[in-house]
C-alpha cells in the first residue's frame, strides 16, 4: 500500500480481446480506499467483469498501470500468491464443488497456504458460523438453497483473510429477499473483518448499499457518485 491510502490504483488501463476488436477496458481509471465498499454499475458488456478480473489478477491488462494492495500487477510474476493472499472472489454462480461438503468447500483456498489441516478446519468453521451455516457444515452444496450456497461462497472468499472481496453480481441469481440477506451479510463482514469490498451489480437498490457507486460505460469509468 502506498501513502495515498488507496488499496486499488488504476490508471489508463486497457484490455482488448479478439485481436483488438473488442475493447473491454479502454483507458479505465479507478481509485479505491482501503476498507471502502464500492459498487460498480453499468450496462451489459461495458467492462465491469473485466475490471474485476484485472483487480483480482485473473488476467493481465494490455496497457496502463494497476497497483493492488501495494503490488504492481503489470509486473509481478506471483499472480497466484497475490490471489491467494489478497483476494476473495464471490461470483454470481456460487461455483461450489458438488462432491465436497460445505466445510470442505470453504477449505479449498487454504491448500496454497501453509495451514495445518486442523487449523484449516478451525478457520472454515469460524467463517461458517459467521455466515450462520454451522448446522449445515456436512451437507453437500446440492442440498442447499441458493442463498445458503452463496453464503458458503462468501465464507470461502474470506477464509484466507483477504484484503479485498471482489463480488461479481453476488445477488444476480437470487430473489430480492434472499439477495438482501446476502448483501447485509457481505456488508457486515466487510466492516467486521475490515476488508475492502468491490461489488458489481445491475440493480440500483443493491448499488445504493455501497459507500460509492462507480458507473462503467464502454470500458471507462464515467462518473463517481457518492451515496454518502
Amino acid at each position, binding site marked *: 500500500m502506498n501513502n495515498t491510502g488507496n488499496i486499488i490504483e488504476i490508471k489508463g488501463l486497457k484490455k482488448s480481446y479478439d485481436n483488438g476488436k473488442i475493447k473491454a477496458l479502454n483507458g479505465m481509471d479507478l481509485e479505491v480506499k482501503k476498507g471502502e465498499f464500492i459498487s460498480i454499475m453499468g450496462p451489459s458488456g461495458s467492462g465491469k467483469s473485466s475490471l474485476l*478480473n484485472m483487480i*483480482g489478477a*485473473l*488476467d493481465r491488462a494490455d496497457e496502463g498501470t494497476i497497483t493492488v494492495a501495494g503490488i504492481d500487477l503489470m509486473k509481478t510474476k506471483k499472480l*497466484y*500468491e497475490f*490471489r*491467494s*493472499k489478497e*483476494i*476473495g*472472489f464471490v*461470483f454470481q*454462480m456460487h*461455483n461450489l*464443488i*458438488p*462432491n*465436497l461438503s460445505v*466445510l*470442505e468447500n470453504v*477449505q*479449498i*483456498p487454504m*491448500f*496454497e497456504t501453509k495451514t495445518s*489441516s486442523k487449523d*484449516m*478446519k478451525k478457520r472454515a468453521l469460524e467463517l461458517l458460523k459467521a455466515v450462520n451455516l454451522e448446522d449445515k457444515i456436512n451437507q453437500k452444496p446440492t442440498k442447499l438453497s441458493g442463498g445458503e450456497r452463496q453464503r458458503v461462497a462468501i465464507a*470461502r472468499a474470506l477464509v*484466507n483473510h483477504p484484503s479485498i472481496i471482489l463480488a461479481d453480481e453476488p445477488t444476480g441469481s437470487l430473489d430480492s429477499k434472499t439477495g438482501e440477506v446476502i448483501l447485509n451479510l457481505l456488508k457486515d463482514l466487510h466492516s467486521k473483518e475490515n476488508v475492502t469490498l468491490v461489488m458489481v451489480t445491475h440493480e440500483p437498490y443493491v448499488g445504493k448499499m455501497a459507500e460509492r457507486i462507480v458507473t462503467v460505460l464502454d470500458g471507462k469509468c464515467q462518473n463517481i457518485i457518492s451515496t454518502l
Partner: protein
Amino acid sequence: MSFLSLVVKNPFRNKTRSALAIVGISIGIIVIVALGMVTGGLENSTQSTLKAGAAEITVIQTGSNSFGSGGSLNESLAASLLSINGVKDTTGILRATNTSTTVTATTTNSSSSGFGAEGGVSITGIEANKLSLIGIDSVNGTAFTNTSTNQVIMGITIAQSLNKTVGDTINLYGKNFTITGTYETGNFITDAGIMMPLSTLQNLTSNQNKISDVLVKVTDNANVTTVSQSIENAYPNQLSTTTAADQANRINQGLSFINTASWAISLLAIFIGAVGVINTMIMSVYERTREIGVLKAVGWRDRRILGMILGESIVLTLLAFVIGTIVAVVGVELILTLSPSVGGIIKPSFAYDIFLRAFVVAFLVGVIGGLYPAYRASRLSPTEALRYE
C-alpha cells in the same frame, strides 16, 4: 481435509464414466497378470528339464512322434544300445495314455469331477531301478516293485489336481492301483504323469516286449551330440534321437513365442486402456472448466491443478490394478481347479515381478493418460474458464 483425499474423491463424481475407464484398464491388467502367471509357471517347470542324473538322449523309431504312445520298438534294443561307444546306461520305456473316464470316477475331489478325463492321463512304464533316467531322483513314499501289477507312483501336479496322496488308489484301465509314492522332477510333463512297472503297462496295453522309447545316458566325458549321431548311424532309417537340450530349446522357443505374444497383447491392452483414461480425463476436465477457473481464482497454482488431474487419473488406474489383479488371480486359480487336465500341467507362478510389472503398467497408464488432460486443465485461462457456460 487433505489434498490427497480430494484427489481420491474426485474420480467418483461421475461413477459410470470412471467405472467404464476402470473396466477398460482392468482388462489390460487381467491379461498381463494372467499371462504372466501362466507363462511364469511354464518357465519354472522347464528350468529343471536338464537334470544331472537324467538321460540326455531319447531314442525313438524314425517317423514316430517323440512323445508318441504305444510300443514300436523291441525291448531288447535297450541292451543293444549299450554296446555303442559313449553310452553309459539305457532303459526302455513305454508311453501310453489312459483315456478311460475312471480317472475322474474315482476322484473324491468334487470340484474336479467331470473334467479330468478330457485329455487323458499320461502313463509311462519303466523299471523302478531306472527311474533316475527319466529325472525321478527321489520318491516321496516308495517306488513300485518291478514285479507288482497294482502299484504306481504319481507326479506331484496330477496328484494335487486329482487330490491323491500316497496310499490312495486310482483306477486305470479298469484296474485299481495303489499309489506307493509321488515324485517331483520339475519337468511339467513328467510331473503330470504316472509311472508304473514296464511289464505291467506292456500287459495292460497289449504291447508285450515292446517299448516306445529308449532313454540313453552317456558317459561322463562323452559328447551328447556325437553319441546320438552314433546311435542314428548304427540304425540308419530305423532310429531317431532327440537330446534333452533339443527339447529344452524347443520348449524355450515356444515359451519365448508365448512371452512375445503376451507382451504384444499386453501392449495393446495398455494402449486401449490409456486411450480410455485420456478420454475419461478430458471429459472430466471439460465438464469442470468453470470449477478449474474458480480454483485458479482462489489462488491455486497451475502445478496443483496439474497434480490434481494427474492424481485422479492415477487413482483410476491403480484401482484398475487392484481389481484386475484380483480377477486375474481368482480367474486363473478357478480355471485350473475346474479343469485338472490343464491344472495338472500348469502350476501358476506367483512371482512378485508379475504383480510389480502390472503395477508399473497401471501407474504409467495413469501418468500417460492423465498428463495431457492435466496439462490442458492447468493451462486454462482463469477468465476464459470462468466465462465458460
